């Protein structure tokens, strides 16, 4: 078997690492779910999976674009392209959402999880409406979201890069489609696992939930992603 080859082992570890990056990314993104859609909780008003996958898939598009036009691109370059695409996607989502929260729903942006915004130092608790969990997307959530989506995009770019090394010598022009679809599969698996861990809503890096759930989600994600990595490399064996 080819498994004992150190390069193969490193690649499996890299796929495991990229899955973990995606899993970690979900925890950074301020997801409010249905309550946030009614401006009754902090964050963007949709589900974890939708946000993580939406930004991550844009990251996948930008990194594959980079790879398609510069086939000799190094791994950090492909990852950076993915990170940038995903971060731009989520930042524009949050900006549009923020405009609607501010000028459409007319709520002050406030987090119910911390007393002071760790970045601006502004007091939060006096702006939180009674009976809600905060509203809108405060500065710390925005920054945390951009960082998180960049991690997710970098993770997506990394899986794509590793898989292309295996598939493109075997099925030259079709490799992009196969690697892209496989990356999408790994993306969905790794964005749903942490969304079960956080139970649907999380505000970002400052949320007390963050510290509580990250270790067990990341552990799960490493194991599952490495399983996916082994599978991905065995697929290449079937193409030759």
């Amino acid at each position, binding site marked *: 078997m080819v498994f004992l080859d150190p390069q193969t082992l490193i690649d499996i570890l890299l796929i495991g690492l990229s899955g973990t990056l995606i899993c970690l990314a979900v925890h950074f993104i301020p997801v409010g*779910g*249905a309550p946030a859609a009614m401006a009754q909780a902090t964050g963007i008003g949709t*589900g*974890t*999976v*939708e946000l993580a*996958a939406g930004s991550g898939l844009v990251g996948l598009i930008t990194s594959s674009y980079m790879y398609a036009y510069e086939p000799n691109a190094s791994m950090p370059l492909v990852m950076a392209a993915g990170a940038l695409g995903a971060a731009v996607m989520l930042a524009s989502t949050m900006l549009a959402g923020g405009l609607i929260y501010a000028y459409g729903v007319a709520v002050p942006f406030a987090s119910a999880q911390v007393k002071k915004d760790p970045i601006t130092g502004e007091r939060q608790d006096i702006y939180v409406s009674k009976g809600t969990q905060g509203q809108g997307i405060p500065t710390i959530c925005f920054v945390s979201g951009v960082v998180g989506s960049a991690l997710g995009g970098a993770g997506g770019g990394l899986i794509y890069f590793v898989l292309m090394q295996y598939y493109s010598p075997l*099925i030259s*022009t*079709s490799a992009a*489609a*196969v690697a892209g*679809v*496989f990356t*999408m*599969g*790994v*993306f*969905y*698996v790794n964005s*749903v*696992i942490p*969304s*079960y*861990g956080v*139970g*649907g809503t999380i505000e970002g890096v400052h949320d007390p939930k963050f510290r509580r*759930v990250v270790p*067990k*989600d990341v*552990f*799960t994600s490493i*194991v*599952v992603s490495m*399983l*996916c990595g082994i*599978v*991905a490399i*065995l*697929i290449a*064996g*079937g*193409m030759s």
Partner: protein
Amino acid sequence: MSEIKEISPNNLVLFGLIGGLIGVYLSPTLPIAGALGAICAVIWGADAVRRVAKYGLGTGVPSIGQIALGMGIIAAMFGLAIMKSQPLAGPVVAVITASVIGFVIGWFAQNVIKMKIPVMIRCMTEIAASGAIIILGYSAAVAGNYDFVNNLIPLVFDNGVILFIFWVGAVAMLHPFNACLGPDERQKRMLYLAGSTGASTMAIVGLAAIMTLGASGAITMLLGIVLWLIFYKKFWDEVYNDAASVVGTGLIPKTEA
């Protein structure tokens, strides 16, 4: 609730697994069978989603449909690619691989993430396996075969039809329970809706098959539309049937203050 007879989960597993695999295996001679097999898997998967999502996942029902097809697509590609020398074993290996991935994720969700859903492991395994059959069945209906390198890659992956199968397959599986959930949810109504989402997917898969296989795709599309109408009518009747038992309580009586 208890007096209503439900189809047991075991029977639905057998229905989805055997019906789905027969469909996939018949697809080289009769591409339409692949789509029919996938409809069996959609009905099975929708019931598995129903059993696990009843407990409340905290993230909404759609997430479980997406993870199902995520696991399913990885396993389907693996099973078909690894068994190139014995193509007959491919679909079975894909289903087994999906079950293993589903079992691992279910085990971790139950024991590491601690979701406290008793049916988590079993349902995750079933959902992954049905996701793999959905991908295999619809892909085989478009490509006319389930040979990964020679048929699926040029006819399903290169032209992007796989993305459609991934997304609409996921929606076909998650939508029935997502639409029917609530206090008056009943299995029969949900299963008819699952049949109708599966059949409407088959109709659009038929459109893709016209692109790849030519005239035989039109039969898939027409049969899909007919099945969709039949299942939707059944669902419609069930809705009317159930709605008749909802009793109006009238307006809140005016009381003198």
